[in-house]
């Protein structure tokens, strides 16, 4: 059990339900046997139990941790998380502001504060704080990704694109960031955006040939362009070629499974037909 907990800690996995279950069934009664590891485990379980809204377990652990590490900023974070759970969000944010004052180079309290604002639906403030945070911590990918999502939720597609492009700059070999840009450009619509979507999906596929999202995206973009009346015929031919290739790829992949048993194989053909008519 302790190995599993360690693995989840190292890999930063959010397996809160499992962590709490493990604690209740094994770890809780055997804490003393863990030696020095016990404090890290307690922190891990405290976080997990708050995620599961299990306040009693969390509070006991936080109390013990506070006794052992009275000046710890990490313990302070747990206390602030508890405030959140109790609905005392303003107090939690004040606590985070104080942490930021004490140490402006610690990125954690900034992000917690933004998370609270987001959960309260105060998206505009969350965006403002996150933008300021990124001015300081420019290479925080998770933050760029989060800001991208926030802009998308507000319909600010151009700004979302800017964030998504930052991610491509940071990790150009990651197919996912190209695919995501493809998704955003496709959503924005119009010939220029569709062309861009097509190129992003292509790049994603070059980096990861098995990405279904990318191949579906490629099909949709090419399909839309190939049936758009304002696209010159020479380009249309090219896009149609891409559509044919994509259809072939998709059909091949589905044929490798038996998910579309008898009768449903026509379904795929129907899908391609329907999407091309819609253009």
């Amino acid at each position, binding site marked *: 059990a302790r190995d599993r907990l360690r693995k989840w800690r190292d890999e930063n996995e959010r397996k809160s339900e499992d962590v709490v279950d493990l604690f209740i069934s094994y770890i809780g009664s055997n804490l003393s046997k863990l030696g020095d590891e016990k404090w890290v485990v307690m922190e891990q379980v405290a976080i997990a139990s708050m995620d599961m809204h299990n306040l009693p377990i969390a509070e006991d652990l936080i109390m013990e941790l506070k006794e052992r590490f009275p000046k710890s900023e990490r313990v302070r974070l747990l206390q602030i998380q508890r405030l959140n759970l109790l609905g005392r969000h303003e107090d939690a944010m004040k606590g985070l502001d104080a942490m930021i004052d004490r140490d402006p180079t610690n990125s954690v309290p900034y992000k917690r504060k933004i998370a609270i604002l*987001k*959960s*309260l*639906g105060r998206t505009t403030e969350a965006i403002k704080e996150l933008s300021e945070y990124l001015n300081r911590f420019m290479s925080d990918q998770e933050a760029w990704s989060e800001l991208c*999502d926030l802009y*998308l*939720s507000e*319909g600010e597609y151009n700004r979302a694109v800017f964030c998504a492009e930052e991610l491509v700059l940071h990790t150009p070999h990651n197919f996912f960031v190209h695919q*995501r840009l*493809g*998704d*955003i450009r*496709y*959503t924005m619509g119009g010939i220029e955006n569709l062309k861009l*979507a097509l190129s992003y999906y292509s790049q994603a596929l070059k980096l990861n040939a098995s990405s*279904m*999202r990318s191949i*579906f*995206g490629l*099909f*949709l*973009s090419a399909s839309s362009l190939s049936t758009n009346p304002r696209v010159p015929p020479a380009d249309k031919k090219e896009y149609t070629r891409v559509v044919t290739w994509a259809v072939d790829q998709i059909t091949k*992949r*589905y044929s490798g*499974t*038996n*998910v579309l048993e008898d*009768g*449903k194989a*026509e*379904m*795929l053909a*129907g*899908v391609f037909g*329907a*999407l091309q008519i*819609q253009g």
Partner: protein
Amino acid sequence: MSSVPDSSSVSNQQVNFDLRAFCKVILHVTKYPQNPVNGVLLREKRKDKDAGSRKFVIQDAIPVLHMSKYTTPMMEFALTQIEQYCKGSDMEVVGYYQANESLKDNQPDIVALRISEKLAESNPNLIVVMINNDQLNSNLECAPFTLYQVNEGKLRPKEARINLLPDEDGALSTVSALIQAKSYRHLIDFDNHLEDISLNYWINPTLNEEIEQLSS
């Protein structure tokens, strides 16, 4: 555009949910508590002999997304696949469900409106179900739904009683048992299908069996 009254359309009083549909919606939401989720609701197509006598029952649900809510391509593709699936199995899309990301946020948003409007093109009586996140519990006391309908470019609340089949207590206890048995781990949505296309998100056969077993 005026809609021709359909004799099997929703009576303004009651919307019925079959156990299978109800469980799939709840399990989808439960599987991804930190994500916005959405999907469509189906029933068997009406056969002419049924005209006029049929209760409006939502019989099944197809879970679609738990990622990329604000971008459109995957949803578009899924809806087209689902349309074709319906053609091949004599089903029709009669509703759309959505659960927002935030616990306190139960309002239909621009995504709900956009998707509902699209679906309402083929079915003006589309039922839109918003999940009331704050009513979610491993021991549900009632169906945590608020109903809406597309009307003049907006989603307006729909006055109707929600009726769980075969009976409210039975349905609620079955879904609670499923949650406690962690059956939501077996639920497959379109996003899961994209990661592994051998997974059947249209039917969810494994889950159907589990629901069947627990309810008998």
